[in-house]
Structure formats: structure tokens, C-alpha cells
């Protein structure tokens, strides 16, 4: 998910007619030189960095006087280094309001209903996650029918049970929710969130906002992003190999080659484990991949990557993604497993084989690392035969399995193979 920065989200909200405070972006130099802006109600400085709970982390600071801004800003830039740093602060006008009148309004993608939901709560502000769980009576969870779209009347009906909301306030909230929903759809967002949303004398104000975009939709958002000068730089946290892998599926819908690298240091810290080897991994099916990876970890192996090549991808995709898997530094083994799959596993096999033949050309395509290939499903016998015909399966460090083996058995056999042949 690509998270837009607060100032970007607020620019979009403003375009939609949602009130946002007056603001400007300042960098470190501009802050030190001093700003010309005058905000009568005081200033808020906010680090433009896609992390949550910025206020708690000291990345949002208020200042009553312009003279206090440089010192406050320096502190934020310093603290932001812990979270990857930031280049800009949003210098915003403080909007006087009562914290008791802070509300929460968001459009989220709900996995349970598999569609958008509009969530409202009368108590917004910090710790909203806890509030949403514990105080359901002051909240609304309105499921939007994706074909019908957002229906303000229905949302208004749902708001009626919330204490303290007048007819006028409900109308304003419905309008605001409609605008958020429009943004959500137009930008292929995973979520659009305003927290807090405050009601002042002159109407609703969005004091803070977040928005996450579906990265799979970025190809059709590029022009929109460019036209608003929304830079993708720094937002793409993918590694170089992940970026390379993403290009495989970019314009080719035939099956998948989903590849993500795992962070070994973080995993080792979380598991409290020392791994005996780092391996390259590929699975047909996410479920079998996760199961197999769990079994591999139990046996002391760290999958350097997750990869799912399901949906019947052509052999060419398998070839390209296997090359990427094998390019990873320090790979000491290779593990491929399929679920009992309906895809043409002979095509899967050919793609893997071509990558092996290229990488291990001097060895006739036989890998020089312990390698397990586990084919189960349609054309699985043909897949195994391909490796036999090309002289791969006879190698001592290669083990080819079929339907007789489970994920657990495959991981255990790989462990024995590794011990015997490394």
C-alpha cells in the first residue's frame, strides 16, 4: 500500500470541498530563516512522514508564537530520523476546538464484507482503535454496496442513534462521507481516514487525514500523481529485486509471480532463532507457501523470500521469477512446492528448468545448492519427467517429490538433503 502524506491527502480533500486548515510546507532551511505566514490562532508543525501516532512520537508539535517555530521544528526533524527522516513539515494553522467534539470518519476496505465500509465514531482523536472496539454505541459501521455506491440517506439513518448529533450535523457528516467515498473510489484507495474531524461554528474541519493507495492500481494513477506533483520517491519501499519482480506481472495477467523479500534480522529477533541456512522459496498457492514456510522455519531454514506463482502462469514467468529468486545474496538452498494444484505444472517445471540451465550452465543446469522440487496436481508427473529427461533429478543434491509428500514431510526431507549434501 502506498501511503500518501498528510499534506497530499489534505490537498485532495480540499479539492473535494472538505475544509482543511490553512497550511504551507516548510523545510529545515525555511524554518530557520523564518516564515512570513501569520496564523492568529497559533501554529502546528507536523512531520510529513508516513508513520502512525505522530503526536505520541513527538512528530506533531504546537507553537503559539512564530519565534518558537525553529526550535520546535528542529526537534521534529531530529525525532523523525528514528523513523527514516523527513524532508518537510506541514506548518498549519491551529483550529480552536474542543477535544470533546473530535470525531472520526473513514472509508475503509473491509475484508469481512469484501468491500468498502464507512466508519464513523463520535469520539475521534488519539487511540481511535481502542475507542472503535470498546465504544460501539457511538459508532456507525455502514457497508457500502459497491454497485449502488454511497447512499447519503441510508448513512443518515444510521447516524440517527448517535447521541448529540443534530439533523444539521448529520447532513454535514453525510456530505463529508460522500466526498471521502468519492476520493476512495477515484484514487483506488485502500482507505481514506479523517481523524480528528471537528465540528466548529462554521462547519466540519478535517484536522488530520490519511490515505493509502492500492499499489496494484498505481499503473493507472501515475498520470494523476504526476499532475499533482505527488512524488512516488521514498514511498516505494520495495527492494530492487521486488521492483524487478513486480514488472513481470505488470502488463501480463496470466497467473502470478508475487515476490516479496523477508527481513531475516527482524524474523530472527521475533522468533528468537538462529537459522541454519537461508534459502530461496517458491510456492504455487499462498496457503501452501505459508504452511511450507512455517515447516521450513521449524527445521531451521529461513526463506529469504515469499513467492507465489499460482493462477497458471506461463513458463516464461516461472523462468523470470526463478532467476530473481536465485539472484538473492547468500542463498544456500532452493525449495519449490505446489499445492495440489489445477495449473499446468509441466509449464511451471519448464520455467524453473530454464532458469536453472542459465544459472548453472557449467553444471548442465544442475543447481549447486540443495534443491527440493515438490509437484502435486495437474500434469505433476509430466513436470517430474521434465527434470528427469534433462538430467536434473539424478543429482545427489536434488530431490523431486510428488503427491505422496505433505508440506511437513517436504520440509523434513529438505532438512535431511541439506545435512547430507551441503
Amino acid at each position, binding site marked *: 500500500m502506498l501511503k500518501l502524506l498528510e499534506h497530499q491527502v489534505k490537498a485532495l480533500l480540499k479539492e473535494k470541498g472538505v475544509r482543511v486548515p490553512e497550511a504551507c510546507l516548510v523545510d529545515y532551511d525555511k524554518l530557520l530563516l523564518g516564515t512570513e505566514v501569520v496564523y492568529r490562532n497559533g501554529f502546528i508543525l507536523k512531520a510529513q512522514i508516513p508513520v502512525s501516532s505522530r503526536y505520541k512520537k513527538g512528530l506533531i508539535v504546537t507553537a503559539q508564537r512564530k519565534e518558537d517555530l525553529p526550535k520546535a521544528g528542529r526537534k521534529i526533524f531530529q525525532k523523525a530520523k528514528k523513523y527514516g527522516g523527513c524532508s518537510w513539515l506541514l506548518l498549519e494553522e491551529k483550529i480552536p476546538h474542543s477535544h470533546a467534539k473530535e470525531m472520526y470518519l473513514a472509508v475503509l476496505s473491509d475484508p469481512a464484507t469484501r468491500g468498502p465500509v464507512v466508519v464513523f465514531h463520535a469520539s475521534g482523536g488519539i487511540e481511535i482503535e481502542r475507542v472503535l472496539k470498546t465504544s460501539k454505541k457511538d459508532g456507525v459501521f455502514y457497508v457500502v454496496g459497491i454497485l449502488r455506491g454511497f447512499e447519503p440517506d441510508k448513512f443518515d439513518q444510521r447516524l440517527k442513534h448517535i447521541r448529540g448529533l443534530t439533523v444539521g450535523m448529520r447532513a454535514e457528516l453525510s456530505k463529508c462521507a460522500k466526498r471521502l467515498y468519492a476520493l476512495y473510489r477515484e484514487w483506488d484507495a485502500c482507505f481514506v481516514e479523517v481523524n480528528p474531524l471537528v465540528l466548529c461554528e462554521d462547519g466540519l474541519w478535517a484536522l488530520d487525514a490519511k490515505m493509502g493507495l492500492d499499489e496494484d492500481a498505481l499503473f493507472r494513477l501515475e498520470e494523476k500523481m504526476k499532475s499533482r506533483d505527488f512524488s512516488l520517491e521514498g514511498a516505494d519501499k520495495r527492494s530492487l529485486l521486488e521492483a*524487478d519482480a513486480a*514488472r513481470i506481472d505488470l*502488463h*501480463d495477467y*496470466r497467473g502470478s509471480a508475487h515476490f516479496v523479500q523477508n527481513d531475516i534480522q527482524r524474523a530472527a529477533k521475533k522468533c528468537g532463532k538462529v537459522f541454519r541456512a537461508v534459502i530461496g522459496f517458491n510456492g504455487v498457492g499462498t496457503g501452501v507457501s505459508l504452511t511450507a514456510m512455517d515447516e521450513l522455519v521449524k527445521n531451521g531454514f529461513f526463506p529469504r523470500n515469499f513467492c507465489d506463482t499460482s493462477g497458471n502462469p*506461463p*513458463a*516464461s*514467468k516461472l*523462468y*523470470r521469477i526463478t532467476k530473481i529468486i536465485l539472484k538473492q545474496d547468500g542463498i544456500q538452498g532452493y525449495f519449490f512446492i505446489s499445492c495440489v494444484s489445477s495449473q*499446468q505444472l*509441466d*509449464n511451471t517445471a*519448464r*520455467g524453473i*528448468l*530454464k532458469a536453472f*540451465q542459465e544459472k548453472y550452465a557449467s553444471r548442465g543446469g544442475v543447481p549447486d545448492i540443495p534443491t527440493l522440487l515438490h509437484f502435486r496436481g495437474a500434469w505433476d508427473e509430466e513436470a517430474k519427467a*521434465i527434470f528427469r*529427461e*534433462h538430467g536434473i533429478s539424478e543429482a545427489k543434491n536434488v530431490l523431486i517429490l510428488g503427491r505422496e509428500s505433505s508440506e511437513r514431510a517436504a520440509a523434513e526431507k529438505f532438512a535431511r538433503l541439506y545435512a547430507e549434501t551441503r
Partner: protein
Amino acid sequence: MLRLVNTRTEIADLQFSLFSGGKIRIRRSACLECESQACVRRCVSSALEPVLKIENGVPVLSRKDVKPESGWCVECLACELDCALYGKKAVTSEFPE
């Protein structure tokens, strides 16, 4: 796009583009002596018919009205791998990096 290259007195190569942006190239000067014709035997492409057929002893596209890059060639790599094993190593493929 079908393109003939290496137009000398030898049999010209066959080259065609693929849906993924890759290419298949067949060095047909080697094919006249091929007994296995593995590229054609193994072509498992799509519901229409195999992409390749043998004409005058060399592989050609079996249809002129359908482009391989439309997805007709399903990029199974069988022609390349089997030609390498049973034929004359005349088929090569390349794909975008």
C-alpha cells in the same frame, strides 16, 4: 511481429514476439537436418492449434491470421527445451529483464 532476418541464401531465421514482450527465435538453417522436429511435436499452445508446423522441412507459423504475441503462443518453452534436448539447439527465447 513476424520478422525474417539473416536473409542470405541460407534458410532465414524465424522470429516472433510474445505476449510478455519476449521473443522466440528459431535458427532454421539447423532445422533441415533435425529428425526429432521436437519444437512442433511439443508445441502445446492454446485451443486453436500449435503455433508451429513443419513446411519444407523447417518450422513455420501454422497460421498467418493470428499473431503469436496475442497470446496464441502460451510461452510454455517446450519448443526451446526440447529442441535443446532432442533437436539441434536451434530455438532460443529471451524475455524482458
